[in-house]
């Protein structure tokens, strides 16, 4: 039961992006099209899950004063792994994502989960927590990218959806400020369903 909530809480009431407001920068940068957003989401799921797992395995062996360095080494290794795999097997997407794959290292969600959860919990729980938070992040990314690609270019995954009916692309959707506004709208909708999250 508890393990399940590790996986599902970040999707709803404890979402890292729209509740904790973490990882916003990359959510603005990679959501112009759905494809890079999905790949970015998968990459972050991988990194959060395995950094949580590794750090949880190591947690009793690390002196707490050097833990940040160890975390960084682990996260950086995983990110480089992801980056290399993307370059090998999905070169086009990797070019679209450019530096943002490397910048997963600085994504607050990854470090935040390692610090706040993995260092104090068992490996399997930590792994699920990582997957859950990665999923929560990926979910928001996909929602934002869906609206931006649909209304910005009239396509989804590059397939013409409404542009063929004479839809004129809204180029503001392709600019990062609109992503911020969409994230704001998601927060708006989310809070209106979750009354306990509303600030007084």
């Amino acid at each position, binding site marked *: 039961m508890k393990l399940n909530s590790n996986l599902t809480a970040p999707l709803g009431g404890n979402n890292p992006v729209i509740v904790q407001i973490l990882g916003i920068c990359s959510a603005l940068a990679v959501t112009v099209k759905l494809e890079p957003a999905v790949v970015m989401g998968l990459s972050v799921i991988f990194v959060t899950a395995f950094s949580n797992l590794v750090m949880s395995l190591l947690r009793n062996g690390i002196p707490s004063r050097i833990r940040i360095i160890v975390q960084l080494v682990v996260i950086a290794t995983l990110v480089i792994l992801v980056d290399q795999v993307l370059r090998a097997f999905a070169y086009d997407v990797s070019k679209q994502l450019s530096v943002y794959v490397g910048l997963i290292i600085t994504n607050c969600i990854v470090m935040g989960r390692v610090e706040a959860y993995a260092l104090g919990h068992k490996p399997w729980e930590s792994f699920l927590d990582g997957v859950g938070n990665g999923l929560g992040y990926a979910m928001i990314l996909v929602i934002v990218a869906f609206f931006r690609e649909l209304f910005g270019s009239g396509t989804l995954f590059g397939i013409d959806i409404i542009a063929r009916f004479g839809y*004129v692309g*809204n180029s503001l959707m392709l600019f990062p400020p609109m992503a911020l*506004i969409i994230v704001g709208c998601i927060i*708006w909708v989310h809070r209106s369903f979750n009354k306990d999250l509303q600030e007084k």
Partner: protein
Amino acid sequence: MGLRKMVDKMKPTFSKGGKLGFLASTFDAFETFLFVPNTTTTKGAHIRDCNDMKRTMIVVVVALIPALLFGMYNVGYQVGMTGFSAFWFGFLKVLPIIVVSYVVGLAIEFGFAQSRGHEVNEGFLVTGLLIPMIMPVDVPLWIVALATAFAVVFGKEVFGGTGMNVFNPALLARAFAFFAYTPQMSGEKVWYACDAVSGATALESLSTTGELGVNAVSGESVSVCDAFLGFIPGSVGETSTLAILIGAAILLFTGVSSWRTMLSVFVGGFVMALVFNWIAPSIEIPADAAEDVAAGLASKKAFMSIAPYMHLIVGGFAFGAVFMATDPVTSAQTNTGKYIVGFMTGALAIVIRVCNPAYPEGMMLSILFMNALTPLVDYFVVERNMARRKRRIKTVK
């Protein structure tokens, strides 16, 4: 007062508990539109005045009328008509834009007021008229509708409605339309209500050649006097500096707008243009520069060295200074703040005009940018005042 009696008779139906109680705020909006409400503020300091917000807004609408009427005439004039037929042609072109802007904006305002149970705010009376006046005449109506919706929802309602907005909603509508649909909002075609005629706005030709350009219909070059009177292509309401100044006189005479802001915007623009005049001669075009680079530099130099007053009479400078920068909600609240923000708005507008190659009109961006900084300026003005008074207390002791 048959109307008053009718309204009174309908009131119980629309108040809480009545049959149509859920429409209370809509009813309230119409009632206060027709009659000055008989309620008074119950707490806080307040000034006794027969004016309420709806009456204040009406003054602004009245001040906008000269520029609007001239704008309509100019729409016809720019495609080669004169006299009443020019006005009628322009009227028929501009009216749909106004209708769309009001219908969409008010529908959203009423919707939000209903769902949140507060009264309908009257700010949109002005915004709804400002939006058509800062659009090119050939703008597709669906863009107007979308931009208005965006401005009302994200410019006003998310901040809590009229009086809470950080940014000027009308300018936000224009910024949205401009950045989202750049091809439909700029270029040579959109300033004329007829496909046969095309040409750059006076400001655009000024920025590329340093001259006001030629009248697209008559083929004669545009004089400074024409530009001041408004016989130049441009957004509907912005072309005639004279009509805008009449509006400014109305606003200042009734005390609705602050002369401090208005004046300091003009001063800021003038001073910044002088600064560019002073810099311009020192720009040297390298002899070995590529042809297009040299041409770019030459046009930049020409634009920098135009007389400062030219900046104030072409493009949206005067319109922005009189009707946008003085918006009582988004402009500075303190007197010192008004001087600072106004001056910076004017100066920044000229900087953007001259230094940004992609976009000759800087007034919109500069006002929006200064809107964001205004609370900060106000904060420091208030802090400084507090510090000064604290010092005074110490000296007395």
